[in-house]
């Protein structure tokens, strides 16, 4: 069953059409890659999926627990509540907060006490805070960041910052996880470890994952299917093997001349 269906999605900024008539579908449990040359509109597509931008036209349908819902144009926090979480191309952690707080804040939507309780610290506050603390610690130990829980996010090494951003996204309890260039700036060893980590969290949290990545070793290794975007248009999709040999993909990356020659 499709968890995410994108139908004829278009986004124009003034005269520039960044995403044009894009359609795609993700099946539940899939791990799908989204590739394309720089400026192809990949991040814009992510921003449309997560509500940062409102599409000019087209629909996005998200299905969780059998409930279908059109989510295009909703606010980012509503989309997050619906069950789509993301990371950012240029890491956006809460830098001056601890690792622990970064994750705990992302659990906010599941907190069940009200303003009055938070001002007066009523019993519901203590109960919920205790649960929150336990769940945060649990998640941190799953991703093996528990020993750094009191470290400020900005003081983590780069690789762990990426990992923390993924952990923070997981804390929102998503069904679909969008990763925007998770391996950017990593060396081959770190990329290999991240590759493992991504496939592992998919199993552990029963996730569907869509990831943007330029590192082909990662994409080809773990993605079951790949979508290719060029000049805002979805030019093809298929298995890594199909994509590797697809003529239009090679053109998109190497330029038109290949065709003319």
């Amino acid at each position, binding site marked *: 069953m499709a968890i995410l269906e994108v139908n004829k999605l278009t986004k124009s900024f003034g005269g520039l059409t960044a995403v044009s008539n894009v359609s795609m579908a993700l099946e539940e449990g899939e791990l799908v890659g989204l590739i394309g040359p720089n400026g192809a509109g990949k*991040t814009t597509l992510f*921003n449309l999926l997560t509500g*940062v931008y409102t599409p000019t036209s087209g629909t996005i349908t998200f299905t969780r627990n059998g409930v279908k819902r059109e989510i295009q144009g909703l606010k980012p926090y509503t989309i997050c509540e619906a069950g789509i979480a993301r990371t*950012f191309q240029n890491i956006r952690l809460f830098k001056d907060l601890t690792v622990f707080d970064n994750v705990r804040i992302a659990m906010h939507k599941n907190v069940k006490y009200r303003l009055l309780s938070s001002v007066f610290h009523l019993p519901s506050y203590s109960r919920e805070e205790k649960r929150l603390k336990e769940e945060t610690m649990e998640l941190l130990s799953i991703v093996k960041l528990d020993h750094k829980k009191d470290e400020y996010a900005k003081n983590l090494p780069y690789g762990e910052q990426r990992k923390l951003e993924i952990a923070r996204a997981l804390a929102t309890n998503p069904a679909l996880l969008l990763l925007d260039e998770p391996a950017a700036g990593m060396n081959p060893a770190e990329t290999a470890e991240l590759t493992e980590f991504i496939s592992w969290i998919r199993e552990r949290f029963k996730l569907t994952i869509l990831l943007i990545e330029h590192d082909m070793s990662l994409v080809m290794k773990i993605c079951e299917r790949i979508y290719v975007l060029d000049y805002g248009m979805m030019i093809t999709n298929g298995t890594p093997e199909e994509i590797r040999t697809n003529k239009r993909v090679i053109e998109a990356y190497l330029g038109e001349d290949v065709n003319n020659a």
Partner: protein
Amino acid sequence: MEQLLQQIINGISLGSIYALIALGYTMVYGIIKLINFAHGDVYMIGAYTGYVCMTKFQLGFLPSLLIAMVVCALLGIIIEKVAYKPLRNATRIAVLITAIGVSLFLEYSTMFVASANVRSYPPMEGLLSKTFKIKNITISMHQIIIVIITLLLMVLLQFVVKKTKTGKAMRAVSQDRDAAQLMGIDVDNTISVTFALGSTLAGAAGVLVGVYYNSINPLMGTMPGLKAFVAAVFGGIGIIPGAMIGGYIIGIIEVFVSGYINSMYRDAVVFAILILILIVKPAGLLGKNTREKV
């Protein structure tokens, strides 16, 4: 009809002052994205310099005006070097707080030196004191001088910004500071020049206001400063023609509110306009909307 014309003339005179101050706001904002809170106080210092020139040194109107402009230009450069330059990479809030600090410093230092008393400019003599009457409409020579000098300075500014090398550098730095630096533009120097130019205009406005309203005090810069800021936002902050148009519109609106509604509410109306623009079209009349990149 005659009353309307009279109001428009008064509005244009007042608007000229706002436009002159607003230009400084807009140029500084354009280049370092700072609301230079101290700008209104540079204008106040201009008024005081003119006052000192005219009373202590018995100079005429034009020499006083020129000296005030030079003094303010220097002041602008010093403020930038001492208070803002060390904060080039700080958050915008930090720089804004510093600007508020500079503003208070100028106000209360002046108060300390020159006392809080209101002082009155010496009356102009000869041609400068004349008024003209056409039917029931009065135009004073002051008003004519304000408008002429303002227009002259604006033309000069447009020339500097559009035609000279320095102007080109200013526009380049406001587009992209790092890229400008890589192209061999001395960014610090360019920012200093921008402050100097903006402050020169504010200094001129100070002397003109002294002559027009005849009274000055150390806190005189706050309100016109804020209104000029409103004018700059109205026209689209960072855009030079926007500041001019904004200045004139705010001046005319203010005079109209005083004339036809209630002068007690004229400041409130200007602030209400500010809030409205910020909410409805924060980019201003001539500006384009931009969005933070994710």
